[in-house]
């Protein structure tokens, strides 16, 4: 980690590279001086299944992390490319396709160590599942795309791998009824004509739900081959879950994560969010405090 901190240094533009799998998710701007690229340390350094926490370098690939955890029947539900890095996934802050059940990716993080613009290591959060000691800088860092600091090491919370997973599909089904009637579906996809549902848990409970009235028009199917992330989606947009009703009724918009509000699109939809002026002021001030010379990932544009 100290090597990484030295590489980041304290002067000159610098960028952090991960697995390069989410480049299309990040808005960029032109920069005059090309930043040097550094990579975070990798490796699973501490894992105790009975603690349900794992400590690893931010450069660790999901493939490596998944393999270590799977051996103990646990997982961290990132659901991104195998080549993606833990740090990259957290920095971009996009949740995987099972967010409906497992929550936002930011809530998987317990502790972070990052290298700041001064080249120093900062620790935030704590090693335990519950912790409220000081400001929650971990949440600030997730989704900041490296512009406030480069993640070096994280402690993540793990969950048990479910006993069983079953996919179902149906045409002309109201996906919002499924959100309301199923207990904790892991994913519900809709594209305007077809609906797919993933239910995980005890096999008998899945069978019982499959027999329920809400699922009467759904039939079991193989796991889809088009699950995001996938190259066919070139953009994703973010909506209120309730807005998906209107969007889907209006015709095919792409692949919607019902109950979550994310839509994966096959055609380019150039969008960058526009926060309120008060929030822009807060975010600019945060950036100015933590990276006064704007040297960290200068090419990234968040708003």
């Amino acid at each position, binding site marked *: 980690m100290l090597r990484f901190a030295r590489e980041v240094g304290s002067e000159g533009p610098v960028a952090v590279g991960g697995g390069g799998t989410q480049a299309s998710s990040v808005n960029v701007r032109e920069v005059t001086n090309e930043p040097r690229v550094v990579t975070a340390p990798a490796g699973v350094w501490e894992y105790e299944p009975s603690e349900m926490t794992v400590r690893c370098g931010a450069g660790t690939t999901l493939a490596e992390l998944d393999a270590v955890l799977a051996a103990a029947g646990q997982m961290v539900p990132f659901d991104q490319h195998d080549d993606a890095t833990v740090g990259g996934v957290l920095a971009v802050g996009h949740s995987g396709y099972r967010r409906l059940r497992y*929550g936002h990716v930011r809530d998987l993080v317990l502790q972070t160590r990052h290298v700041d613009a001064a080249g120093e290591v900062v620790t935030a959060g704590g090693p335990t599942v*519950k912790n409220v000691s000081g*400001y929650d800088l971990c949440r600030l860092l997730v989704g900041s795309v490296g512009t406030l600091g480069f993640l070096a090491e994280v402690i993540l919370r793990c969950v048990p791998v479910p006993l069983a997973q079953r996919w179902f599909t149906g045409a002309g089904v109201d996906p919002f009824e499924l959100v309301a009637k199923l207990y904790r579906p892991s994913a519900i996809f809709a594209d305007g004509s077809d609906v797919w549902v993933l239910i995980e848990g*005890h096999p008998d409970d899945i069978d019982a*739900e499959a027999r329920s009235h809400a699922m009467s028009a759904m039939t079991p199917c193989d796991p889809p081959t088009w699950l995001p992330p996938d190259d066919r989606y070139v953009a994703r947009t973010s909506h209120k879950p309730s807005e998906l009703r209107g969007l889907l009724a209006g015709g095919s918009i792409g692949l919607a994560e019902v109950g979550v509000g*994310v839509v994966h699109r096959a055609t380019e939809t150039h969008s960058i*969010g526009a926060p309120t002026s008060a929030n822009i002021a*807060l975010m600019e001030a945060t950036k100015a405090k933590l990276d006064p010379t704007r040297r960290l990932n200068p090419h990234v544009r968040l708003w």
Partner: protein
Amino acid sequence: MLGADVRTGESELGLYGRDGSVLRGNADVVCLPTTTEQVRQITEICRNHGRPFVARGSGTGLAGGAVPVAGSVVISTAKMNRIGEINLDDRIAWVQPGVLNLDLSRALAPVGMHFAPDPSSQQVCSLGGNVANNSGGPHCLAYGVTTAHIAALEVVLPSGEVTVLGGIEADPVGYDLRGLFVGSEGTLGIATNIAVRLTPNPPAVATLLAAFDDVSEGAAAVGAIIAAGLVPAALEMMDQRAIEVVEAFAHAGYPTDAAAVLLVELDGQPAGVAAATQTVTDVANAHHATDVRVAADDAERALLWKGRKNAFGAVARIKPDYYLHDTVVPRSRLVDVLDAVYAAADAHDLVVVNVFHAGDGNLHPILSFDAREPGALERVHAAGRAIIAASIEAGGVLSGEHGIGLEKRDYMELMFGAHDLATQDAVREVFDPDGFANPLKVIPSGSRCSDSFSQHVPEGAWV
């Protein structure tokens, strides 16, 4: 002050100078607004008069977060108790900060939902307080702490501006300032409207009580339950003294000869819960449990929980005052830290009762004492320091639930280095450069180059 309830009467101010901690401050002006606009106006007046302010929910905080120091005007949210829009598609409800935690879950029952964070004080504590403290509760191992259940916050910033942090859409743009605000203990502004995430009520619940005649077997059973692939909705442990005290008060049927009991709650769907119940029973027996009892119905379930939830109140039967500690340690070190807790209590001639959220290693040693005894409070603080040090040394944290507030502010250096604290302070300055919002809390003085207000705990406040 404009249109809001303002209290300046002597007898009431005493109440507002205190919270659930042993700390006391000085309240000379207390406001009880009902709207966001009133909160905004009050903070503006405070700024114009150079007075800091402290927001107060129900005042149940245990770390002094709501104790007014440095001349802070108290802004109580007690009258901001309306539940607004409930949207089942978005799975959120907008609630004002004065809504009480359990009242919210009760109001959501008709639509089959609840608010997952369930602190032991949930009958009294407010949502605003839950946000300020990133509150936990027994169900947080499975469901997450408060921050995971807050979609958006309307806040009055120390600058007087009103803004919404976070949002209902899937991925709000920019930095997660909402996440930063949760757990900031009133130092970044005041939340005036809160979009809470709704959690569906589980169709099946099972509650078990397992008794052990050896504390380390009980603690080992906790780890084994997790390692078996279960995430219980709650996993609570109580030591022998806690059991004796609780049983005398609540008559919940706890075995008073047990060295420790585990209260386990499992929820979800019927087959999964049934399988998990069997697993927990098997694990308990494998760790030489002397008795494993599964609650037969809701009434028995409520009785088992009555014991646990009344532990703090029951402690008053030993001596009139108590100091409740709150640390979290890795589950594997629970027994070591417990030994250190007993040793610290013995060394300072104090009685200690232990209840804890064993599932996430959150310890609540309760030191029982009589504040009227000369020197008692000093002994309590000395024992407390030893407990905190032992917890951090074991790889734990400073606070699992209660926050830093005033009480643990000066212990932050045990957990964070100078640069870590400087970074936290820098972020605080973004929101509150002039130090109006709940000054002197969370970050130890000396981390900042300058403090607008007194550096020390002022006259009238005792620790």
